[in-house]
């Protein structure tokens, strides 16, 4: 686990799970608990009610600001995050921020990093690139891969809400199987999005053997912050993939955004892990394993799995995917990665504590 061990046993009431608490020493609270947090993205933005991405972006950037003493420049891909934060004449950003294009945020970030190197400021000022899953996994993948392999000193953060939400919920390469989107309607016996392996940007990032790759969700703030802070302790390319539920696109109650993110992890559908130099280093284990149905049912994008007799075959397929994740990543205390699995190979047969 990425959270510091000394934080584990001491706080009995909510332990390391809540945002903060008066019982904790200042340094043991999350960045978000502090009034002095950067609020890198501040109020007045136009994100939908209960937007996971708005929350995730603040979590990540505030942590990065904390880690660097406020010396962060952000390069943002086109997408919801960009649109809701910067409609003329109002910007919600409180850090130096640039938006260029949909598919080039990693390269813009590389350019900023190169300028900082040339200016001799690279040791103090750090660069964060960020975008949604479309801007990252699809159209930005080439620039992202280039940034990785060159070794540019950039933390790239993908806020994954699993479809093109800004354009009205179309499928992306990060859309999970059986999910309904505007371009994967469950019509004529189609399952919603096709069943398949999809494209795992974190595993692709790991294949570049960059110093740091991690996944996280907006449901576990401490884990997320610890990962950002850890990421900022490395030089070179780093990748953080944060699951951010979208009430609009997922058809979920805005009040349930964090809970649904939590369920994604607790069912095993979204594995939360860390990898160092291409090797799986730590896994955030499932606390209370739940069937995938608990995650699927509160989301209208999966409504076709349960209406009119439903599609138990698809639910079973998703459960199998979750179970496979549990096995592959060792998401339960007793599970170990399977011999011969790609991940096993990436992990080089070793796993961290």
């Amino acid at each position: 686990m990425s959270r510091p061990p000394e934080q584990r046993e001491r706080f009995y009431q909510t332990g390391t799970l809540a945002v903060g608490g008066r019982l904790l020493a200042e340094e043991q609270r999350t960045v978000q608990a502090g009034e002095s947090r950067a609020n890198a993205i501040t109020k007045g933005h136009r994100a939908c009610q209960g937007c996971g991405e708005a929350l995730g972006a603040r979590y990540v950037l505030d942590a990065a600001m904390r880690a660097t003493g406020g010396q962060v420049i952000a390069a943002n891909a086109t997408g919801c995050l960009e649109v809701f934060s910067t409609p003329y004449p109002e910007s919600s950003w409180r850090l130096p921020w640039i938006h260029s294009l949909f598919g080039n945020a990693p390269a813009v970030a590389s350019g900023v990093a190169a300028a900082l190197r040339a200016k001799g400021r690279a040791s103090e000022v750090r660069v964060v690139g960020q975008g949604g899953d479309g801007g990252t996994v699809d159209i930005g993948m080439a620039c992202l891969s280039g940034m990785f392999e060159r070794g540019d000193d950039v933390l790239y953060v993908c806020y994954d809400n699993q479809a093109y939400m800004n354009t009205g919920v179309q499928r992306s390469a990060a859309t999970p199987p059986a999910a309904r989107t505007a371009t994967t309607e469950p019509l004529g016996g189609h399952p919603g999005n096709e069943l398949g392996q999809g494209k795992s940007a974190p595993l692709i990032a790991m294949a570049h053997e960059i110093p740091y790759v991690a996944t996280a969700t907006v449901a576990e703030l401490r884990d997320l912050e610890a990962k950002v802070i850890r990421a900022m302790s490395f030089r070179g390319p780093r990748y953080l993939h944060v699951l951010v539920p979208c009430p609009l696109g997922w058809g979920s109650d805005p009040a349930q955004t964090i809970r649904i993110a939590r369920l994604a992890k607790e069912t095993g559908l979204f594995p939360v892990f860390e990898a160092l130099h291409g090797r799986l280093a730590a896994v955030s284990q499932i606390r209370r394993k739940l069937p995938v149905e608990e995650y699927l049912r509160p989301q209208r994008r999966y409504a076709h799995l349960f209406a009119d007799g439903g599609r138990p075959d698809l639910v079973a397929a998703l459960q199998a995917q979750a179970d496979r994740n549990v096995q592959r990543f060792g998401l339960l205390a007793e599970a170990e990665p399977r011999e011969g699995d790609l991940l096993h190979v990436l992990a080089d047969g070793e796993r961290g504590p």
Partner: protein
Amino acid sequence: MSRPRPFAITLDVGSSLANRTGDWRTERPVYVRRMPPCNHGCPAREDIQGWLYEAEAGGEGYERAWRLLVADNPFPAIMGCVCYHPCESACNRVQIDEAVGINAVERFLGDEGIRHGWELPQPQPASGRRVLIVGAGPSGLSAAYHLALRGHHVTLCEQAGKPGGMMRYGIPAYRLPRDVLDAEIERILALGVELRCEQRVSDLQEAMREGGYDAAFLALGAHVARHTEIPGGTAAHVINALDLLQDVEAGARPQLGRVVVYGGGDTALDAARTARRLSPQEPVVVYRRTRERMPAHPEELRQAQEEGIAFRWLSTIAAAEGGHLRLEAMELDGDGFPQPTGRYEELDADALVLAIGQDADLALLSGVPGVEVQDHVVKVDEWMMTGAPGVFAGGDMVPAERNVAVAIGHGAAAARCIDGWLRGIEPRAEQEAQLATFEHINPWYYTDAPRTVRPLLADVRRQSTFEEVVKGLDESSALFEARRCLSCGNCFSCDNCFGVCPDNAVLKPGPDGEPYAFDLDYCKGCGMCVTECPCGAIEMVPEEI
């Protein structure tokens, strides 16, 4: 920079503050204080969640917790020893792992109070009113405390030689150490309460007239043991449980031989456990119903069984003769009442201790107009007043569950009502907050922490001494236990709402522990703060449009 930045393309940071997204809202979040189930379950109406909250801080928080506690109940150490803690039965945490050990924390705080000599609050200036309290048991002492705090002169008349009532003469020392009892009573007397021991009030009206009292609170307790006819009982060694407990309290150590206790309440178990300490032979408790239907507290039963006390369920004593008893087996009918079966068995016994209930001695009320007595108890209205104006009653002598916590609660409630009556204020029922149920809790946020079991004295050791069986917690265990509190329905400053708001619309206006506030200029009303509040201290209410 002197040159202007490009129009529209480049913006000033943080300029979105001009966009008040609060307009989007159809529901607004509000902080609420729901009734925690522990508080709801506490007969003494303690603000348990409140004092646990203070105790969670440790250090100076203990004194704050103690002060909050004694605002309702001046006997935290005593409660920590003898309370059957219905608060814990109600505790929501039981649905996560185990109930919070509230009683143990209370004991810890009470002990801390004694150890540090913390003083009770100073009374208000003298009101010039005088109140007579009859009976210095938990109810009378509690009422005396609360009345004294309100500035009234209180005279406590106690029939026995020492104050404490059933706390002293009914509860054995191994459950309630006498130094604890004395210390907490002494603190009340130090407020200026006038105590007159060995003073029996036989005529209330006369006593009030003579003493110039404006009101009276009757807290006589129930000391008259009920009897049952047992054929041959006169031939056998039959004693009352209360007599046994009082004798032992007075220092006697009677040799009883093989003891059978008849009854199923706490007094029966107190008697059995006392007998266990007086004799090497294991006592037997005979009870006419099943274990499940036994009114004694399960914890008491468990400890009794651990001490080697045997139980004969579904049995009545049909006859007593010489060295043995004749038991008749019973069975429960459809309504749960025991019915005789006609099957008998013999049980050796040198002494039979009867513990089948007690009644109040209500002689002093004879002639008081308006007072109504029914089933050996005095009727009171919802303001604790008897049919006689200015005469209030509480504790075991009124219809209610009989235990120390209930009695203390009665005392406090009576004091509040007497105070109002003295001041001529019309009594009004308090609006009780909505109960905080487990559905209001987001259990994810609470780490799994098993209850700290109070260190129990070694079973062997406790069988032959009157040393206290259940000791208090050490500091770290008490802190651990306090922090297991879910703080149901009441903010405990976890910062979750502040952290999870996607719109940065939760404000922290003050230092730790001060309430948060919603920035309604920006709150979009998503309700995430409500869902993610661990303890259910926020709710959404429709926006008035």
